[in-house]
Each structure stands twice: as structure tokens, then as C-alpha cells.
């Protein structure tokens, strides 16, 4: 222990005497560790943001769709898609589990009120959609009702921001007409309600003059058309969504006479899995880069330690003549290599956190708001790992120093 502290002091002195050289040596470790820290903390932050996002939306929904890979694109029949009857059959078969099931159709349109224009991202939904979709908060007016669906009414529920932009205020928008183009036909839709979208980390990603709005799905579908591509289902939140999805698609394949796997589904869970997978692959890729720079950093340390051993050959001889054992010299140089890389690791950690913070700021300017998650465990592992790098790459030079013959070392010029 005594000798350990003595060695730490010696190492710090040696590092201080060669400040520039020591810094350049640490650079590889600094780059390696800072990229690991930056990536893991940005990754953890993104994961946290995504999870929060899905939790806000309620994780009990799923979309059923044909499995496009399974479909014979040359020879598909309309029967491959869904009708209202399929939805009714599903509801009848799973009355307990299905809280809400509607066709999910979408479209987009440009609009212009007076001299102000805007782009609409139109979602065709069923009645009382806001009871299930938790990101949607009604501000004034009402949501689409069953009568609107059955009557294929030309009504629209618009976002608060759009109401303010086009009509000056939320309440002023009610009962006003908004021109929309649906399936190539221009119509005027009447505003029946204004909603606010719940604050979301990714809300800013939508371009500034594109607004979400809701219309009856029957209105969004072309006249006389009864087939649609997606079914949106809200289930009992206490059930296993993945298992539910399987039984729904299985049932649909059965009643519609399709092969197993013809229909597939996507849930918050599976979407999150996919996002996490992408984040995971990204982390691995950048982790590999970090590993390479740590390797390079380690080799740098080995190189400089070899130089240092040669430069200090005479000093090693003197130490041996005064009674230093092989083990004492070995520890001295090992500790020096480790301290070099641990200091590098420490600086790298600080840099990494800095880069992560900058990343958050950059994401913020792009409309993605998240807070940096710094996992203490990552920092501990990073520092321990850099100590390990020092130990591993310091071993060879330290051994070389330790086994020097005392008289040879003393004669060294």
C-alpha cells in the first residue's frame, strides 16, 4: 500500500514532467471513452424519450394489416383487404378484449383560408376516437360521432395551432369551412371541433405548416369504396397485446380463407422494439469505433511506455542498485500506464458528457426535446475499462523495465 501511493506519486510526477507527450498519449483513450459515454447517454436518452412517447399514447393499441411480403402483388384480390364486416366479425368474436376497432385510413391535402394556406395530414377515424387515443385532448366543439360516420358527413376536427393560424382563435374556427381535397375532389369541410395534441418529444419534427386533423373514415374513403388497408384496435390495457394481435390476425386469416401469416400487426410494443433495435445497432456500430480507438489508444500508451522505459533505463538501474525488486519496478511502470489511461478515461468521460449535452441541444433545435440520461454505471465501467487498457498495454513495457539487469541498466548511456 505504501509503495502503491509512492508509485502513484511517481507516476503523476512523470506525467507532469512530460505534459504534452502525456496528453497526446491519452488522446486515443480520450476519444474512445468520450464516444462511448456520448453514445450510450444519447442512446439512453433517446430510448427514454421513445418509451415516454409510447406510454403517453397508451400502449394498448394495435394495427392489423396484410403482410405485404406474403401478398402476390400480380394477383391480389380486394378480398385481401378489410371491410366493415371484418371489423364487426372481429368485435363479435372478441367482445371482451376489443374496446374499440375502426378502419384506419389517411390522406393529405392542402388548404387555404383567405390568404393563409396550410397542409393537412388527415386521419380517417371512427366515432369517439378521443376516448381511446390519449394524445388527443378536445379543446372546444366535439369529436366525430357515429352519425357523422354513417352519414359520410363532411366534417373535420382540427388542431388548435391550425385554428389559431387560419381563424385567429380556437373558438373562432368552429362552424367555419375548410377547403380540402379528398380522392381528387375538392370539398369544404365544416369544423366541428378543435383539439390539442399532448406535448411530445417529437412534436417539433412535423413541418411547421402541416397540421394533423381528423375526419370520419367513411368520408376519407372514396365514395362506394368499402375496402381499407388497416384496422386500428384498442384493447384492454391489462392484456398481452402481442398475444391478442396473434389471435386477431389468426381469426381474420381463418374467416377470409388466407394462409397463416397473411395478416400481421403492429403495436406500440413492436414499434418500440423496432426503434430499440435500430438504436441498438447504432450503439454497436459506434461501440465498435470506440473499441478501435481504445485499441489505438492502448497501443499509444504501450509505445510511450516503451520510450519511457528506454529513457529511464539508468534510473531503473539506480533503483535496482538500491534494492528495488523486479516486482517493485513492474508495479511502478504498470501504475504509470494505468494512471495515464485512467486520467485519459476521466477526461474522456467529461468530454463524452459534453458531447451528449451538445447532442441534446442540437436535437432541441430540430424539435426533439429530451434530457440527457447519464448512467453512473457507464462511467464506472468506462473508467475501469480504461484502467484495464492501461494494465494490458502497460504490461509489456513494465515487464521489459522490470527484468533489466542492474549493471546493464546502470551502464546505459
Amino acid at each position, binding site marked *: 500500500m505504501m509503495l502503491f501511493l509512492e508509485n502513484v506519486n511517481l507516476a503523476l510526477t512523470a506525467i507532469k514532467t512530460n505534459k504534452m507527450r502525456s496528453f497526446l498519449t491519452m488522446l486515443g483513450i480520450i476519444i474512445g471513452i468520450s464516444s462511448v459515454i456520448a453514445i450510450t447517454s444519447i442512446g439512453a436518452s433517446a430510448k427514454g424519450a421513445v418509451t415516454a412517447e409510447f406510454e403517453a399514447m397508451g400502449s394498448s393499441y394495435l394495427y392489423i394489416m396484410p403482410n405485404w411480403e406474403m401478398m402476390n402483388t400480380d394477383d391480389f384480390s380486394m378480398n385481401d383487404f378489410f371491410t366493415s364486416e371484418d371489423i364487426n366479425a372481429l368485435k363479435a368474436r372478441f367482445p371482451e378484449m376489443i374496446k374499440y376497432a375502426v378502419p384506419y385510413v389517411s390522406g393529405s391535402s392542402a388548404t387555404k383560408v383567405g390568404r393563409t394556406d396550410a397542409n393537412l395530414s388527415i386521419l380517417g377515424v371512427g366515432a369517439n376516437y378521443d376516448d381511446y387515443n390519449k394524445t388527443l385532448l378536445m379543446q372546444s366543439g366535439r369529436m366525430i360521432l357515429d352519425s357523422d360516420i354513417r352519414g359520410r358527413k363532411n366534417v373535420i376536427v382540427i388542431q388548435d395551432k391550425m385554428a389559431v393560424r387560419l381563424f385567429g382563435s380556437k373558438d373562432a374556427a368552429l362552424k367555419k369551412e375548410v377547403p380540402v381535397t379528398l380522392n381528387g375532389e375538392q370539398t369544404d369541410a365544416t369544423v366541428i371541433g378543435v383539439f390539442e395534441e399532448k406535448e411530445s418529444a417529437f412534436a417539433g419534427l412535423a413541418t411547421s405548416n402541416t397540421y394533423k386533423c381528423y375526419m370520419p373514415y367513411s368520408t376519407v374513403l372514396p365514395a362506394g369504396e368499402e375496402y381499407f388497408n388497416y384496422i386500428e384496435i384498442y384493447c384492454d390495457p391489462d392484456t398481452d397485446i402481442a398475444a391478442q394481435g396473434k389471435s386477431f390476425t389468426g381469426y381474420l386469416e381463418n374467416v377470409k380463407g388466407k394462409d397463416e401469416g397473411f395478416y400481421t400487426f403492429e403495436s406500440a410494443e413492436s414499434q418500440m422494439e423496432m426503434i430499440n433495435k435500430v438504436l441498438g445497432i447504432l450503439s454497436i456500430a459506434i461501440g465498435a469505433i470506440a473499441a478501435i480507438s481504445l485499441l489505438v489508444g492502448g497501443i499509444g500508451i504501450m509505445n510511450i511506455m516503451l520510450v519511457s522505459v528506454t529513457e529511464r533505463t539508468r534510473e531503473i*538501474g539506480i533503483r535496482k542498485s538500491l534494492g528495488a525488486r523486479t516486482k517493485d519496478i513492474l508495479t511502478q511502470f504498470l501504475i504509470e500506464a494505468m494512471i495515464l489511461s485512467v486520467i485519459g478515461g476521466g477526461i474522456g468521460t467529461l468530454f463524452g458528457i459534453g458531447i451528449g449535452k451538445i447532442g441534446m441541444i442540437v436535437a432541441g433545435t430540430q424539435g426533439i426535446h429530451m434530457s440527457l440520461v447519464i448512467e453512473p454505471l457507464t462511467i464506472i465501467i468506462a473508467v475501469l475499462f480504461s484502467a484495464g487498457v492501461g494494465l494490458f498495454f502497460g504490461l509489456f513495457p513494465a515487464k521489459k523495465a522490470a527484468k533489466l539487469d*542492474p*549493471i546493464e541498466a546502470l551502464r546505459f548511456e
Partner: protein
Amino acid sequence: MEVIKVCNLEKIYKNGNIEVKALKGVNLTIHQGEFVAIMGASGSGKSTLMNVLGCLDKPSSGNYYLDGEDVSRLRDDELSYIRNRKIGFVFQSFNLIPRTSALKNVELPMVYGRTAKQERRKRAISLLTDVGLGDRYNHMPNEISGGQKQRVAIARALANEPPIILADEPTGNLDSKSSVEIMEIFTDLNRNRGNTVIIVTHEPDIAEFTDRVITFRDGNIIKDELTGRGVASGFYGEVSGK
């Protein structure tokens, strides 16, 4: 008591095809408390012998008994222990560790001897005071004169109170005034503390400080006699024979 005994010691240096026989079968016995000078022309093998005696180098053949123990049989760590505890080595070129204060240099053998920090510091300061450098202990080697460096080196050699002091031309790089001062320190160590002191020198004036002069030529001892001081000391009457 025979502290040092060498029998048929040979040392051959090999540099590629060239072989240099630096020691050609040296026999020598030195008793505890002796004060010995080794003289001889440059290249006669004095340093080679000192390095073997100091356990810094190994002979090519022959035996070296230190305190009756055959040194060739010792392991690496045991040799380190001897260098640390039994022998204090003083070099012609001082061999202080650069950028390290006089105090730290003197502490070093005690660091390897695992002496506690406070104890170490106290002893190092007292040793430096003994050699007249009590006020300079914080100086770096490049901030003090040659004579002062050699005194630091002697203080360092004494750190663990080794019974044997080996000095290879300790005054070789010093002016005559400093040389005399250094020799007075060695004399004091031998006379008052009972250390066995062996010094290499080629200056007869320096050799006059000792009791016994051994002369080398071409790797052999050609002369081994007492000085005036040696005869006067009466020491060799007791040891008998010599």
C-alpha cells in the same frame, strides 16, 4: 569475521567475437570493520570486482561468499534484499535520480525497505544533516555541487544502515578539497560506526586514508599490503596472520 570472501573469481565480457577477461581468478578475504582501498591502472578490473561484490553483476566463474553465504545460489529477490540492507554502493558518477529531491533520493532505499513514511523522512533528514546537507534536502540534484551530490549519495547508501560500504572511485569527479571531506566521512563510518568500507581509487593520497591497499593489474591482485595507518591501528594484530 570474514564478511567478504572470493575464490578464483573470473569475469569474462563477451562482445560478439571479442572476449575480454576482466578478472582472472581473484582470491580475496575482507573482515568485518576493515577499511580497504583497491588501486590499479584503468582497465585492470577494479570496477568489475566492485560490481560483483555489490551483487550488481555476476561472475563468470568462481565463488563469492557474503557473510559466509554463496551469493550465486541466491534468488533475484534475495539479491535485491542484499543490495537494500547489507550493502551501500557509492558511484563515481553519483547516480542520483534526476528531478528528485535530495530527500527523496535518500528515502528511496527505505521505500524499497518498506520503512514507514514518517520514520523514513526523519531518518533521511538526519542522514543529510550528518553529511552537512541538513539545509539542502529539498534541492534537486542539478542544483547542488559535485561534492554535495556525493554526500547525498553517501547518505542514501547509509539509509538502511548497511554493514558494508562499497565506493567505486567516489572522489573521481571531485576536487581535492571535496575529496578529503568525502574521505573523512568514510573514515568516520569505519572508525566510529564499525562499517566495512571498500573504496576504489587511483590516487595514492586517497588510499592513505585506509588501512589496507590492494593493487590490481590485468585482472589479478599483484600487491596486498597495510598502510601506515593500518599498521598503527593495531587492527591487523588482532585478526592474526595478516
